[in-house]
């Protein structure tokens, strides 16, 4: 039982009036939550900001809107001094639903922004590298406050919840790194999140074999902190933790503790984020990547088998045309 040290100090931030010293106000919550409403559902109470990634109110479709939206979110929400803890996660059944966009009529549209053929190679810089590197850097460098990630259901781009300081996931959460599976190099930040959290040996195996990482496995490997039955209980728990953080430390202690916790991520990102990303882009330009949605659907089928086996205490090892249950140690 943790006895709170303080009442929440949300909203009690000191400030000299802007007019007096010639500074300008930050973009208010009302403005950026409106600007980003196409990819985030945001709410804020007592300094705790909850931002749920979504597409049309349901699970997120990955594409330029989310790529750019995250970049701007970290800029704007990160600069808002009234945010004291940020909860960042997905919406609906899954964290990521697929790749593409939804048109005004709700119809699925292909992610043309991710094309890499010679005539449109510049798009790789504008829509992948530029937003992508800033997403990763923004999450770690531009947010000053503690972050809690919510990973719900199936996820690719799992680095988003995983790079939060604390991560919760749903009981049915699972992921697999799609990069190598679709003939791409894992360089967009996922490699940092996975390698640092699960260790390099496990990461090598997971990346090269397309291993399905279930919630339980993620907990055992130290990738997440807690598992909750569903998305709402995850968010509920995230709010509880956020309040605990608010009442344990004062504003400056919370914010500076965050910087201490995040130093290893900062090193990794400074060390490799930019060049690993562009190396992924280079190989995307040279090698054909089958981006068809069936790869993600196949991963769902595998995940279902793996999760079923896991409940029986069995494993399913990654194999071409595999799927057989077996004992972990024969």
């Amino acid at each position, binding site marked *: 039982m943790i006895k709170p040290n303080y009442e929440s100090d949300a909203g009690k931030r000191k400030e000299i009036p802007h007019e007096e010293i010639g500074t300008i106000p930050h973009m208010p919550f009302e403005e950026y939550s409106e600007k980003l409403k196409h990819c985030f559902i945001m709410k804020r109470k007592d300094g705790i900001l909850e931002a749920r990634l979504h597409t049309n109110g349901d699970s997120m479709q990955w594409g330029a809107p989310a790529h750019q939206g995250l970049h701007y979110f970290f800029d704007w929400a990160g600069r808002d001094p009234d945010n004291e803890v940020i909860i960042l996660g997905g919406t609906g059944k899954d964290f990521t639903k697929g790749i593409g966009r939804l048109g005004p009529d709700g119809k699925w549209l292909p992610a043309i922004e991710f094309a890499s053929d010679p005539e449109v*190679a510049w798009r790789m810089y504008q829509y992948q590298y530029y937003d992508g590197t800033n997403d990763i850097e923004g999450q770690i460098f531009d947010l000053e406050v503690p972050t809690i990630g919510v990973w719900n259901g199936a996820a690719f781009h799992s680095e988003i919840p995983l790079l939060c300081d604390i991560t919760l996931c749903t009981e049915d959460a699972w992921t697999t790194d799609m990069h190598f599976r679709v003939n791409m190099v894992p360089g967009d930040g996922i490699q940092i999140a996975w390698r640092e959290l699960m260790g390099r040996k496990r990461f090598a195996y997971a990346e090269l074999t397309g291993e399905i990482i279930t919630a339980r496995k993620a907990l055992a490997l130290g990738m997440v902190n807690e598992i909750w039955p569903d998305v709402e209980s995850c968010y509920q728990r995230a709010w509880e933790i956020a309040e605990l953080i608010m009442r344990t430390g004062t504003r400056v202690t919370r914010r500076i503790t965050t910087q201490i916790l995040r130093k290893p991520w900062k090193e990794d990102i400074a060390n490799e984020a930019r060049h690993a990303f562009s190396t992924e882009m280079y190989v995307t330009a*040279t090698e054909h990547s089958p981006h068809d949605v069936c790869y993600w659907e196949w991963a769902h089928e595998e995940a279902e088998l793996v999760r079923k086996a896991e409940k029986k205490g069995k494993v399913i090892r990654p194999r071409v045309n595999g799927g057989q249950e077996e004992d972990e140690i024969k």
Partner: protein
Amino acid sequence: MTLTSFVKWPKYEEYKEMFKEHFIMERREDGVLLVRMHTKGGPQIWSMELHRAIGQMWRIVGSDSEIELVIFTGTGKDWIIEFEPESWKPEITEPEYTRYEHMFLDGRRMLISMIQDVEVPTIGVINGSGGHAELALMCDICIMAEDAVIADPHFLYDIVPGDGIHSCFIELMGVRRAAYAMYMSEKITAQKALEYGLVNEVVPYDRLIPRAYEIADFIMKRHRTIRRLTAQVVRRPWKKRIVDDLDMTFGTEMFGDFCKNVEHANLSARDYFYGTGEKIYHDEERQKMLDEKSRRTEKSLSKK
């Protein structure tokens, strides 16, 4: 009698012959090897063939336990200044294949082999002007001809400097000077290279090889094991540097080549180093076409 025998590495006479199109090699009795780049007997012309041969040479020479020190140099008054258009043509017809097999792979191996596969001291001798000075700057010791000028013209050609010269500049002259040298394609005279700590000595052209041998003689007086172990102490920063910023910055350079149309076959640095610097492409018209092609995509971006 054992069941199997030791596998023999290629001997000096054998690899001297193997590499003769790219290097003229002279081995002294004491194991000091002089490796001189050339093309048809004259100054070396940058080709995919030479590019690959440099890495192969370091690997094979590095495997010869009778070699005790390597002096690496070029021919005439050029360093790397001319590109052989015919050799680089595959970059135009098969950019994906070429930029991996001949650029990313050979380009990295060229330096990795020199640093990782060689156990003995190395002396780089910059005999003339040009780019790709990392070939000599990454040697343990480096001397330079007094009338030579080096520069990194990657940026001038709309290429990201990520293939090793950036490592040398950052490691040897510091971030501030390196930034300037890369953005401005700064021409660095021998005197300036000495001042920046890029090279150890500035030597009259005619005295270069005799001076390299004098340095070699001094080193060769020491015990064999000590020479070889000292080389490892001296080289450790390069090993770290290569791990730190060669593989992935090379990828960044290649990524840039796909975003902006680049054809190595069309590059000519002679006028940049010796003339007005106005004519840096073999075929100006073709370059205009390539630039225009790249600009079109930028325009279509700004319209959006």
